[in-house]
């Protein structure tokens, strides 16, 4: 599975959008426009883009609270996402969810979920429902390295394994769960080893290599789509350039470590490749950067101009009927 030149440029556009969106979120947080917890995806953009090109638009995606990037990749509008951050009624979750709870059921983006590991059995269930209804969708479940140490991980993967459900589990190993490194939190350092217990094929992939991931994940998605095959697991090795959330004092790592990791900035790597392969010139990429700047600015404008929820609507959606 390889990308057309158009898709390669589009992927660049997407990753730049995620990066800029996140930077603006950080600014808006500092300005007090965004509240609560805010977890940025900066440094991990390639995986979100890879999922976009490795799946069908109607495949399910579910993830944890670090969900802005994959929401953009799933095609949710930047304006409505930003509106959710600002707690507006025009937000994807009508201001009830915030940064950590971005969903759009029509796009089959089933949310960010804020309890570590809590969404893993939900992924099992999404796949179970498709299997039950005879739909050939695949469910992509993204999770942090930290969530592989929680009970949910084992129950959800085992159950999906026993029932051969169409799930592609993707661990985003960004080396830390908050301030605890994988080494200090997991008895096995290669997280793929955990899949062996559930009889699942598993592979470690370079989480900064967009083309490589599109290839690997794309093949896996089609493999899993065959109801005979059952789930698979990936460990995408990447790095988060910013703190865990806003206000992280980052005592658990050095500046040097971050600088070193930034040499493998996925957007930078992708740009290099596009130029090397003659797909784009530096000017063309700069032009995309300008477009992104305008689009994100428009998203912020839309969010800021959107209405806040009416206080008397507090009880909406507590019950379905």
């Amino acid at each position, binding site marked *: 599975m390889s990308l057309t030149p158009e898709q390669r440029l589009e992927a660049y556009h997407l990753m730049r959008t995620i990066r800029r969106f996140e930077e603006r979120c950080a600014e808006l947080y500092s300005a007090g426009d965004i509240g609560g917890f805010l977890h940025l995806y900066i440094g991990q953009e390639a995986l979100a883009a890879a999922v976009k090109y490795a799946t069908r638009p109607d495949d*399910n995606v*579910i993830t944890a609270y670090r969900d802005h990037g994959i929401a953009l990749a799933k095609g949710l509008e930047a304006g409505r996402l930003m509106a959710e951050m600002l707690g507006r009624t025009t*937000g*994807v*979750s*009508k*201001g*009830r*969810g915030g940064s950590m*709870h971005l*969903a*759009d*059921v029509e796009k089959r983006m*089933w*949310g960010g*979920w804020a*309890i570590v590991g*809590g969404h*893993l*059995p*939900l*992924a*099992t*269930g*999404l*796949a*179970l*429902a*498709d299997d*039950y*209804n005879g739909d050939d969708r695949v469910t992509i479940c993204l999770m942090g390295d930290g969530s592989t140490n929680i*009970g*949910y991980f084992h*129950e*959800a993967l*085992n*159950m999906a394994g*026993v*029932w051969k459900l169409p799930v592609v589990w993707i661990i985003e190993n960004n080396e830390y769960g908050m301030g605890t490194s994988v080494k200090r939190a997991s008895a096995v350092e290669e997280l793929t080893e955990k899949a062996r217990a559930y009889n699942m094929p598993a592979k470690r992939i370079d989480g900064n290599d967009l083309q490589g991931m599109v290839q690997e994940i794309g093949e896996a998605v089609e493999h899993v789509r065959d109801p005979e095959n059952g789930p698979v697991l990936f460990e995408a090795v990447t790095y988060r350039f910013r703190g865990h959330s806003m206000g992280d004092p980052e005592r658990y790592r050095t500046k040097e470590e971050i600088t070193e990791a930034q040499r493998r900035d996925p957007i930078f790597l992708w740009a290099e490749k596009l130029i090397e392969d003659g797909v784009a010139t530096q000017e063309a990429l700069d032009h995309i950067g300008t477009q992104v700047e305008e689009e994100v600015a428009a998203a912020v404008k839309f969010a800021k101009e959107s209405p806040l929820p009416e206080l008397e609507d507090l009880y*909406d*959606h*507590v*019950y*379905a*009927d």
Partner: protein
Amino acid sequence: MSMPTNVLDTVAHATGQTETKTYREAISDALWEEMERDESIFIMGEEIGVWGGTYAVTRGFYDHFGPERIRDTPISEMAIVGAAVGAAMNGTRPVAELMTINFAFLALDAIINHAAKAHYMFGGQFTVPVVIRTTTGGGRQLGATHSHSPEHIFAHFPGIQVAVPASPFDAKGMLKTALRRNNPVLFVEHSTLYQRRGPVPVDDYEVPIGLADIKREGTDVTIVSYSKMVEISLKAAEQLEAEGISSEVVDLRSLRPLDKDTVLESFKKTNRCVVVEEAHQLYGVGSEISAVIMEEAFDWMDAPVQRVSTADAPLPYSAELEQSALANPSKVVAAVKAII
């Protein structure tokens, strides 16, 4: 032990013919009939299929509906509820069975954070039509970890409904309601009620979730209870009648929604109230009902509300000791007499 005859009054709600069924059969029939009617319903849980259900509620289901719809799971409470929630979000109607409510503690997060909140948290984008069935209750010498009655804890949280039926009629009708609506419902059966018999309509019917029921009419005192404690309360009412005291027994039937109106209406008539609950007293249903009465019917109060609850100790194994910790008719009688 036979059901006190006044419980038969519930049938006044239904029309037409009835037949006698056990609580177990009533629940089993509700599941069976709804599964026949609606293919999107399936059941998942531990030992529900090949084994036939640890309380035999799903006996015969596996052979009839097959392994796709009667799904034996690993011992994975978090995933049983979590996967049922995910499947409910995505267009099916799962029934997740937790062997007993004691094991629901392991699934607390999936129930409270996900089943109850998902609809709200995403602005109503999807519904979570999941029914979590489980059994509650002590008194069977199962020791401290296996004898809890914590259904009120779940009822604390907006977003979920908690059904606690006491009779075959209510159990079947409320389960049908749960299976036909779109809210997550924790459906709590009492493990010592499965053999109880009572009339159940032959025709299809529903009992709303959120409507209490007067199980016995009276004028001197209102006894509020639910689940197994309804039976205890009715026995107490019989004893009290022999002594010339007329008790009205209100069966809450669901802890959330809580039908305050029925409780208050009864209280405004009797001006006295005793709450009988199987949970411990602290922060419980009795506390809640007391507060409701004080806030909304203060001027009708002739005496302080009394609470009959499980003793404030873990439930012990030894039979007599355990029984001494639980509510019983004489404790209820004593509580009523204390305020009359």
